[in-house]
């Protein structure tokens, strides 16, 4: 149990519709090891965000349970940093104040707070915009600010919901490399949702492919490629092979669920 950081155990979730129940997730079990980088891909509406919301403590599971370090999740907490698809920056706060928001809630001195915020801002390259309001930032800068805000409280787990989805290809690659760099330095456990198969393979130790109706785990694919991941690895035949396998599992899913 000790190396399991996040553990989904027989998790199901349905939402009540007008006259029926909609099964968003059905019997999902998944263990994510400490310091592992897991990416999750799957068709739209297959329950990826719902699954992550449960690990974050924002969504209650219908049945089953989610354990973090062997303890059931009881609501959100600063041990798990969440990066939302819609940035979710506080628009009335500057970049620096956004980054300091979580730090103000922890018992550290003002000097340390400022220092840690500054470090997180430098890490994502927003030093020159530390005192700007979010409305003056581009999409990529907003997302970097959200990442800095999550990093600043130094969570053991990072939950990222399509964080780079809205960015242009160049910014996206830059942020991917930056994320991998900090991950290999600080070795957090990462659960990362994406629509992009290349991104899923490039980042992960393991790729979890989900299927819809009902939302379930379709296949888990190991990525046996060394870190640091480089341009060469991206172009290697092995990368291509894994990417094809993931691609195939996502886009040519057998309609019936492979019963687990």
């Amino acid at each position, binding site marked *: 149990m000790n190396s399991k950081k996040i553990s989904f155990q027989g998790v199901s979730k349905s939402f009540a519709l007008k006259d029926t129940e909609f099964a968003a997730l059905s019997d999902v079990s998944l263990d994510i090891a400490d310091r592992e980088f897991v990416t999750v891909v799957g068709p739209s509406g297959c329950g990826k965000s719902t699954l992550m919301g449960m690990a974050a403590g924002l969504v209650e599971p219908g049945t089953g349970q989610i354990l973090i370090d062997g303890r059931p999740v009881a609501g959100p907490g600063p041990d798990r940093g969440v990066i939302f698809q819609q940035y979710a920056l506080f*628009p009335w706060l500057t970049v620096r104040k956004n980054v300091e928001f979580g730090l103000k809630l922890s018992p550290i001195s003002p000097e340390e707070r400022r220092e840690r915020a500054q470090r997180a801002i430098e890490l994502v390259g927003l030093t020159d915009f530390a005192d700007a309001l979010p409305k003056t930032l581009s999409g990529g800068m907003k997302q970097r600010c959200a990442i800095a805000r999550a990093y600043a409280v130094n969570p053991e787990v990072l939950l990222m919901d399509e964080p780079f989805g809205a960015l242009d290809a160049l910014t996206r690659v830059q942020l991917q490399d930056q994320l991998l760099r900090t991950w290999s330095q600080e070795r957090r456990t990462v659960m990362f949702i994406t629509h992009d198969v290349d991104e899923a393979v490039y980042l992960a130790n393991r790729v979890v492919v989900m299927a819809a109706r009902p939302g379930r785990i379709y296949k888990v694919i190991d990525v046996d490629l060394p870190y640091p991941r480089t341009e060469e690895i991206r172009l290697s035949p092995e990368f291509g092979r894994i990417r094809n396998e993931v691609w195939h599992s996502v886009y040519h899913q057998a309609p019936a669920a492979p019963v687990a």
Partner: protein
Amino acid sequence: MTAVTVPDTPTPTPERRRTRRPVRGIGLNVIAVVLGLGIWTLLSRSGIQGLSGPVEVAVRGAELIADGTLPADILASLRRVFTGFALGTALAVPVGFLMGWYGTARGLIEPYVQFFRTIPPLAIIPLAILLMGIGETPKVFVIFLAAFLSSVVATFQGVMDVDKTLINAARVLGASDRVIFLKVVVPASTPFIIVGMRIGLGAAWGTLVAAELIAAQEGLGYRMQQAQLYYDLPTIFVGLISIGVLGLAMDRLLLLAERRLTGWQERR
């Protein structure tokens, strides 16, 4: 021949919008006022029954200022509007928050708010007189009610509309309900509250004249009532213009507060 000027690197200061608008805007405003006065003069000259012109009204205004009537009326009216408005919004903000934040409070309070909102304040006056006599209380009460009802709805809508992901973002950073309320819900709904206050202010002025029908001794509404009895149109105009100018001035003050407090909003 083409001269190419290289523009300076843009500095990230959002000052651009402010500098251009006043010059043209104020120019157009002045033209509008002059035009309006001209049309007014024409109309009164062309003999609409008893309509007094701008000059006549200005003269009467000066008289009323000189003998102290206008300042006293303005003071009395302002005091009522301001007291009613301040009490109304001071109560509306916490009640609106309560309604937006707690489903129970919403369920208990909303039917009353919606019900009283459909009753014009004017219709409350007979009841207010019978219950509260003919002193200051019923007048302030009616203005209070008008201001309260219109701004409570805006506040509560504002709280309801706070982006759920912002609340979640605060929760995952470890914020308690109290912190979320103070640091997320309050700032996020400030724009709505200020809009509510502006509506409330409009409602307060709108109710003033009606409130001063209640056996007042002074006040702009009362003065206009009196003037009506004596067919004194210039005085009525002085009253109308005073109400308009005062209302506009207070609204501009709130607008200024809005600019300062909610400049962070992305404007579309």
